[in-house]
């Protein structure tokens, strides 16, 4: 195995990344290892340091200290070899080319691009492929920007808040394409502050706040860190004493027939509840959404103390 193959196996390695802009410490010590083929969401509120970290991954800015290795290479070398493509948070397209021409130009810069027609097809841009880039709507522009990143056929695809300008339907299309691309064994890193997106489309979530990684794990794990789920149901003739016997219940509330159970183990509680009260209905189990997990993880400890 060559050194390059070994490096390729290493995927993406960030160690001790620090970056300040004047007095603002945007990123203060980020360590992260992303294996090839992983789809990772970087989740965090605005100002958490996501974009700054992404800029350093891509070599657009240089860390004050720490290092970035992409498939065993420096970012600039990985970019030069065409291993990386990105859809940055801001930016539009150059004018005076048609969508198709723009993709042809971009494809020509990479060693193993995807076919332009294929990319037009999967990104849903075929119908306006002949239109000039400066005559597109915001949503169309965003699709083309995605197409520009895809046509490069990179090993690492970085997306910085990619769906910001898209409507719900376009958003769904977008993630379907992203998934298809990731299934080719590609590494995908995307930043988002849409919790549902991280939850639905990433295998792993890296939660950032105040310039550091505050949680890192499989999506289910992140949720489990907050844990509790809530069961709501209408249970005719329910006895409070019976509910108190249920396993995995940490708190309960009974108003006539309507019950609310806060559970550490909702599955166990629900099984037992249904055995005791087969006529329970209107059952609703709500996970402590990623939102709660997110709020808890990113809360500023100094603010909580107050």
């Amino acid at each position: 195995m060559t050194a390059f193959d070994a490096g390729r196996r290493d995927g993406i390695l960030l160690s001790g990344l620090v970056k300040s802009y004047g007095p603002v410490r945007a990123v203060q010590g980020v360590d992260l290892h992303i294996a090839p083929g992983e789809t990772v969401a970087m989740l965090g509120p605005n100002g958490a340091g996501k974009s700054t970290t992404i800029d350093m991954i891509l070599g657009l800015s240089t860390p004050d200290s720490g290092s970035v290795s992409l498939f065993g290479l420096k970012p600039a070398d990985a970019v030069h070899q065409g291993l990386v493509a990105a859809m940055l948070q801001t930016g539009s397209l150059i004018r005076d080319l048609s969508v198709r021409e723009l993709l042809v130009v971009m494809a020509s810069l990479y060693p193993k691009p995807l076919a332009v027609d294929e990319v037009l097809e999967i990104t849903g841009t075929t119908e306006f492929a002949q239109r000039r880039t400066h005559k597109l709507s915001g949503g169309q522009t965003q699709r083309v920007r995605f197409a520009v990143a895809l046509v490069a056929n990179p090993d690492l695809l970085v997306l910085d808040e990619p769906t910001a300008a898209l409507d719900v339907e376009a958003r769904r299309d977008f993630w379907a394409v992203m998934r298809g691309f990731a299934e080719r064994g590609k590494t995908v890193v995307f930043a988002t502050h849409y919790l549902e997106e991280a939850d639905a489309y990433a295998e792993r979530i890296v939660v950032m706040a105040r310039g550091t990684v505050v949680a890192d794990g499989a999506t289910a794990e992140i949720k489990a860190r907050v844990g509790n789920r809530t069961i709501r149901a209408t249970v005719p003739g329910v006895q409070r004493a019976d509910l108190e016997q249920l396993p995995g219940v940490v708190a309960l509330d009974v108003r006539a027939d309507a019950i609310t159970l806060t559970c550490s183990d909702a599955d166990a509680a629900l099984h037992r509840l249904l055995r005791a009260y087969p006529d329970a209905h209107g059952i609703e189990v709500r996970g402590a959404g990623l939102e709660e997990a997110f709020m808890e993880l990113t809360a500023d400890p100094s603010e909580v103390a107050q």
Partner: protein
Amino acid sequence: MTAATYTRYEVLRCFRNVRFFIFSLGFPLILFYLVAGSNRHATTDGIKFPLYYMTGMMSWGAMTAALAGGARIAAERSVGWTRQMRLTPLSVRTYFQAKILSGYLLACCSIILLSLAGLSLGVHLSIGKWLTVVGLILVGLIPFTVLGIVLGHVLSTDSMGPALGGVTTLFALLGGSFGPLAQHGVFHSVIECIPSYWLVQAGKIAYTGHGWPAQAWIVIAVWSVVLVRLARFVYRRDTARV
């Protein structure tokens, strides 16, 4: 992975931008027809006015086009495209080469259009002389092409219009495109150190027959080297900020 496709489309973009095209090529042409057309049979210092005016417009038009070529970088910066291109394997060298080439092609178009316009007003110029004039103008454009790139990196799209207008007018004025300034003295010596002066002189070869003195080559070379340094500096500063 070829630079050829990128360069080809870059040139295509340049020629598709109608506003840019009209300002760079149309202005000198219209001015030539308006002024030289109405003074067709006049002479200045024994030289037929259309010839005199054609060479002046050639150096001015070529300068405008060359400056504007690099200045288009401002528009690409404003939409974040330069950042996007830095994420591709495209080399910085190819990126700039394409800009310089488009500027030069535009300048050549301007020169050819003005030459044809000159022909239509009865200007006679031997092929040899024409080639000398055009060749030296193209050499004299080097600092202006690089200056365009510098402006493209330091100015915003909004300020580019007035800035380009101001810079080209200033250089054209000092260089003598709108008529010679001081012929002697300290001021003349200063003017001889300005590259646009030699652009205008290159045009005048059409009727004076004198080629460039050594000083012209030195002035163009020094300005080019200094501006390339400056361009490298502003490019680095621009890319480091983001």
